[in-house]
């Protein structure tokens, strides 16, 4: 009987080793350990044994069963591991192939530029004010100290709809409207973005439609130095901390004094190059202290209140920042153009 058990064990180990799938291993298990398996058979024959032999053979049979079980489990683990390895091998891909494209939409660079400036000023407590793109002659000109026949109306030949209505030539009427709405009480802190229109033939540097963004701050004790400080923040935000600004006198009917702001040329660092027309400076925006006539027409006491205003063209800013060479790119919507600025 002892020999029988030893040979079963030997037989089992051989078959376990031969088994190369979970299925054949399972067959081995049934063959040796199942209810009708070989070990069970041996145990059934134990009744014929002597009292002394019985525990010895019993123990041996249990040992053999345990050894076979252990071998099967080891083999099962091995097969499992092999199977996983094969699966991994089979599932291996070329990770260098391109991924499935996702949809990449994005903002228009002009709108992005505008939102960026809006956000800067929102952070400083400004509100965003908007107004109609078709304006009355009054708000577009008269309320801004540009009475009919004023020579400065020349500077911005306009697209009229009737004698009294026109496509606004600047976003400044929003300032006039907002001031009016405040009924003579400050502070007024607004940033006004929007589309504007001029009587220009479209070419690389002109567009009959373009955008503007203006700022207005009216309160008691607003000074030219406040304007200078504010513009400095803006210029550095837009063009980098290392840019210098300078103000120089200019003329706009709705501000007095009026200034233009230049930034130091990034290309030549102020030494002079073709980008800055050899002046070392690049013109960015117009600004000034709100003309008392504008304040008074909107119901503000110009002895008590002063204010500053500034206005710029997002097209110009984007063109300068990214070296865009043709203003028409902003309106033709060539995807090859638009997509270049989605990450900005």
């Amino acid at each position, binding site marked *: 009987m002892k020999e029988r058990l030893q040979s079963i064990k030997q037989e089992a180990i051989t078959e376990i080793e031969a088994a190369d799938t979970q299925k054949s291993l399972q067959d081995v298990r049934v063959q040796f350990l199942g209810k009708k398996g070989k070990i069970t058979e041996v145990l059934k024959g134990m009744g014929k044994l002597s009292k002394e032999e019985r525990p010895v053979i019993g123990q041996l049979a249990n040992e053999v069963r345990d050894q076979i079980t252990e071998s099967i489990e080891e083999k099962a683990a091995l097969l499992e591991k092999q199977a996983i390895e094969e699966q991994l091998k089979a599932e291996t891909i070329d990770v260098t192939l391109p991924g499935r494209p996702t949809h990449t939409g994005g903002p228009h660079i002009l709108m992005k530029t505008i939102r960026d400036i809006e956000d800067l000023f929102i952070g400083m407590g400004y509100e965003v004010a908007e107004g109609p793109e078709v304006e009355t002659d009054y708000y577009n000109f008269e309320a801004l100290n540009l009475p009919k026949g004023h020579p400065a109306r020349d500077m911005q030949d306009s*697209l009229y709809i009737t004698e009294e209505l026109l496509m606004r030539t600047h976003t400044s009427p929003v300032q006039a409207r907002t001031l009016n709405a405040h009924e003579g009480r400050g502070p007024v802190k607004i940033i006004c973005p929007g589309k504007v229109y001029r009587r220009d033939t479209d070419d690389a540097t002109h567009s009959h439609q373009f955008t503007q963004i203006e700022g207005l701050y009216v309160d008691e004790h607003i000074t030219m130095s406040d304007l200078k400080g504010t513009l400095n923040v803006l210029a550095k935000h837009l063009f980098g901390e290392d840019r210098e600004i300078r103000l120089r006198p200019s003329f706009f009917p709705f501000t007095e004094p009026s200034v233009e702001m230049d930034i130091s040329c990034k290309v030549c660092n102020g030494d002079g190059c073709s980008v800055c027309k050899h002046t070392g400076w690049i013109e960015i925006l117009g600004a000034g202290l709100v003309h008392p006539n504008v304040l008074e027409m909107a119901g503000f006491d110009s002895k008590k209140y002063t204010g500053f205003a500034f206005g710029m063209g997002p097209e110009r800013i984007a063109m300068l920042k990214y070296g865009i060479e043709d203003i028409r790119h902003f309106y033709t919507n060539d995807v090859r153009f638009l997509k270049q600025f*989605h990450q900005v």
Partner: protein
Amino acid sequence: MLVSINWLKEYVDIEGIPTGELAEAITKTGVEVDGIHGPILNDDKIVVGYVEACEQHPNADKLNLCQVNVGEEELAQIVCGAPNVAQGQYVVVARPGARLPGGLKIKKAKLRGEASEGMICSLQELGVDEKFVPDHQKDGIFVFDEEVQIGEPACPLLNLNDQVLELDLTPNRADCLNMVGMAYEVAAIYNKELQLPSPAVTKADESSKDYIAVRIENKEMNPYYGAWIIKDLEVKSSPLWLRNRLISAGIRPINNLVDITNYVLLEYGQPLHAFDYDRFGSKEVVTRPAHEGETMTTLDGKERTLQPEHLLITNGEKPHALAGVMGGQDSEVQDDTTTILLEAAYFDPRTVRKASSQHNLRSEASARFEKGVDLARVKEAAMRAAELYEELAGGTILGEMVEEGSTDREPVQITFERHEINERIGTELSIDQMNDILERLRLPYEQQGEQYTVTPPSRRNDLRILEDMVEEFARLYGYDHIPYTLPTGQSNKGGLTKRQRLTREVHAYLQKTGLNEALTYSLTTEEKSKHFVSPEIQTDQEAVKLMMPMTDLHSHLRLSAIPELLSSLQYNVARNQYNLGFYELGSVYLPNAGEDVLPKEELRVAAAITGIWENHPWQGEKKPVDFFVLKGILEGLFEHFLKSPVDFEKASLAGLHPGRTALLKIDGETIGYIGQLHPTVQKDHDLDETYVFDVNLKKVFDYVDKTPDYEAITKYPAVSQDLAFVVNAEIAAKEIEATIYEQGQPYLKDIRIFDVYQGEHMEEGKKSIAFNLTFQNNERTLKDEEVDEARERIIEKVKEAFSAEFRG
């Protein structure tokens, strides 16, 4: 405006200041210098020579052999091919070693066997613009017509060493539209003395009054008119110095009579006019508004038709000048002119502006009258011209100028306290600093303690109010020296309005779905303005249009962004970009009743997509865009903002596919549309299947409700049921869904369509739709019977209502 540095030096000492530095100082203080021109040539090896002898070259017919005195012991032999070279001429000689503009270097040479030590130059060879070269010298060398010092450097004589500033003047600084004004400005910047002309003439006993009288009919259009008779004039070329100055300012010299008025215009900013007295035709100048439809022929030979808003200078009968703009042909100064009637007048700026712009006649004169000339300088300018006529043309000045009207001006006084200036600039200017600035500007003022009264002279007509003085102090003190501060007023929160916030959310959402933000023009063609207008916009009115469009491409205001977006798609497809998704968020402009009523600007969002929407580049998977892609984007948008559902109602709209178009409705109100372009429209635009929507965002925002209706998550299980029906193909899924929903209450929570089938194995004209229903009771576990009952009810009702066949 062009400002010659050499000329400026006559009035103010700027010797030693580099021109670049001067230009920057002028720019920073008040007038933008747009460019610096010159020097054209400054070479000491280019000198005055005297042609002692001139013979024909022995070996060449067309060459001359000149012996030229160049101020050295020996004469220089120079071969010269100019036809006009002759003995006895003072000429310009470029000596060996000289370098001409364009790089030509002069060397000793042998020409046809004869030595040539230099070159006798034409003005063009010296770099003078051809338009300034007198006609008789265009094909030959330049010859001085006055005596000059032999051997002297020629470049300064011809003003070639000059530099010229090109100014970009703002309209308020008309005072700098002349040399004297610029001299004031520069003297103020550098705190220098001023040397201005003080003209004087010898007046003959004979009186101008015997020759001319002046009558002004309209004092508003013509506040002042002076007429001066100058006799015994000789027409000839102006002296070199005067010609040089005109050329430096970009004006072509003509003859002394004409050049003098131009010179005074440049020097004083006062346009003058010289009529040929003998051709004037009467002894009276009458200035009057034109009669309606009256005509006159201006100097340029064009006949002008006039209106009463134009001012004429007449001889009492016929017009001789369009005041301030251009003279007439009949009384033009000619070579035989001996007596002139010199006009020195002040014309109303607006009157001149109307005439010059309506007749498209912008001149140096009109540009100055339009901006307003200095009243105080009208007479002085006339005196300066008279002085020059006497000196340069041998003129006899007849007595006093005959005057009518007045050059008086309402005096302006600006009174302020020191702190008012400092409070506006943000500085602490002291009394001394302020006084210094006023003195440099030569503005008469009185100062008592903190109190100032400035009386701006008429040359600074732009100074009217306190703020004008703020500018004067700020710019002379220097913007560079003003500190950087930020306002310190009361705080306020700022930020975006609800509408602005929502608008930004729409942008963010649409960009996330894969659409590119596009920007198109608001002004479109008349044709395009009629297309793709959402039906809720009243279309019986024509789109708002421009009075005078520059081009038909941009004549009408859009009522939808779709037409221009389609053009953008087409533009891209033409450049081999086929997979496109654009949206544009912006206004459309609805006409309002009434002539001068603003259009109603409505915020809309429009989108257009075409091409492949989903793809897997190396597995060959390509899914073109379809209706449901765009619908999905819209549904996501509505879901983001709204609780009330938006209905997609089958519709037929012009330009869109009749079977693939829907109106969008909230509470029965149309807010836009979605659909595929009609195949013919697609073809017209070279597009494959293209889908568009156009939605009224204002309406969407009106319905926005983003407060969540919180419901506790139930612990009782949901029961899922699938139902499939076969119905006629044209029955809308939405209708069946509505019936199912109604019948499924109270426990039916959700319906999802998970399969739609039409085609093979299906009867013609029929489709199969499968629904997945979710039942749930939040208070307890649902009983099977409850679900079964609902299911039966639903099946029966759908069969009955839609003649449906239940499939399981």
